[in-house]
């Protein structure tokens, strides 16, 4: 019997939860705020769905009832992607070690 492709996706999902579990426990507590901003940025990979939705109108039709939602989602996700990664970078640049001159 064929295995439903859904089962494969479910396997990826479950295994990723475990990967996430172990990776996040190894994050140092002092970086928990950057962790939140970077997870926020990567969860905006939902923009993939937004792009498909925005280009769903077909030839000649740019704005249809379904593509408008796609365009709106693109704006929201783009704010998050750029904002999330840049603010994370700004924060991480501030974490410095003690100067060794003393």
């Amino acid at each position, binding site marked *: 019997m064929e295995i439903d492709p859904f089962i494969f996706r479910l396997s990826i999902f479950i295994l990723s939860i475990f990967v996430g579990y172990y990776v*996040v426990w190894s994050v140092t507590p002092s970086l928990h705020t*950057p962790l*939140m901003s970077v997870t926020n940025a990567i969860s905006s*990979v939902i923009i993939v769905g937004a792009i498909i939705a925005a280009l769903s109108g077909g030839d000649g039709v740019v704005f249809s009832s379904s593509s408008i939602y796609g365009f709106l989602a693109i704006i929201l996700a783009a704010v998050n992607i750029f904002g999330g990664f840049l*603010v*994370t970078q700004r924060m991480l640049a501030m974490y410095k070690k003690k100067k060794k001159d003393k």
Partner: protein
Amino acid sequence: MSANLSAILYLVSGVLFILALRGLSSPETSRQGNLFGIIGMVIAVTVTFLSVGNFSSGFVYVLIFLAIGGSLGAFIAYRIPMTAMPELVAGFHSLVGLAAVFVAISAFINPSAFNLGIPGNIKLASLIEMAIGAAVGAITFSGSVIAFLKLQGIMSGAPITFKGQHLLNALLLVLIVILTIYLCSTQSSNLFWILIAISFLIGFLIIIPIGGADMPVVISMLNSYSGWAAAGIGFTLENTALIITGALVGSSGAILSYIMCKGMNRSFFNVILGGFGATDQTSGSQNKEQRPVKSGNADDAAFLMKNASSVIIVPGYGMAVAQAQHALREMVDTLKKNDIKVSYAIHPVAGRMPGHMNVLLAEANVPYDEVFELEEINNDFANADVAFVIGANDVTNPVAKTDPQSPIYGMPVLDVEKCKSVLFVKRSLSPGYAGIDNDLFYKENTLMLFADAKKMTEDITKNL
């Protein structure tokens, strides 16, 4: 682009996201990790363009909207003060949630663009995934908006509770399940809209009863929800990158919520059901007897610190409110010039989000190897000369160790009272968030410094 190739590239971007989180295990590797995350995102977006393969006028609009959102995001990222980070993260979570809702709506209206069937006859599994993605996304959105308003101070941080609240929430959740079942059998768009509307309502109702100081748990929880919403949409779109990322973010937020709850010695449900402190506040003020406290000024504090050989600083949310982190660093610099050893002690739930204090100290150029977590430093208080508590309160309360009747009994606290002397910067004697008196105020070795945190710190520096 062939479907197999794009699937493999989505997997690559998923792996890069894992590496992005992995990088955060130490500050040295973290910047590289962030770069991996950016590369992963670029790959995912590029692959999507290539696999849709539609470079008509719609494509130009996609780029325009991408640029609008991107520049807005970049502008916010550069302008936001570090003290406002909790608000920013809450605000960003709401955007992910809403984006998930929009994608789900679009897929519902035009399922053929996503290979999910035709309107009125969407594949059953896809419809369920879509409904879950939309519902969780909507809950994330409205919940985050409320969290944002509370953090920003637009809405009072006090818990809003009413009778039958939990019953109402439970009924609404059951209603969502029933609606999803009906949606699957009828494919009715009206049901889909009602489902989304009720989910918005639930997000709102879940967050309003939670008080200001429980925000670390709330933000982590919403972080987790935004991940599950993304994963739901990932299943709908059959997209590996989205499924992996959703799972990562979902478990990350869940772990942070767990750490925050442990830091307060409360169960997750206790926080979610909310209303903490509201009842204790009234009873606490009624039978409070006047006990003598010793209060001093900047001069006394400077004298104590000048004669110390080691000082431990305990920052809390009050430091963020007073924006005192830079003044504090200057004070510490002066202390170090006098060969006084200084370290910082951070409680897991200090501030309004996980790691809040660490970011503020990093902003003020405090080296991260001088900053310690509760377990690392708690034994050092007994050997330190001065503890300087600035803007923290409940996390130093010894009652948590001594009085089983206290609402915060069992919560891990910093052993500040073991120091030879304690300097406590605070504006008044009012109890902290938990509504209980802090025994530390009345200890023999405690000197209260009643002033604004920033001003007091500056005055001490002048007197050193």
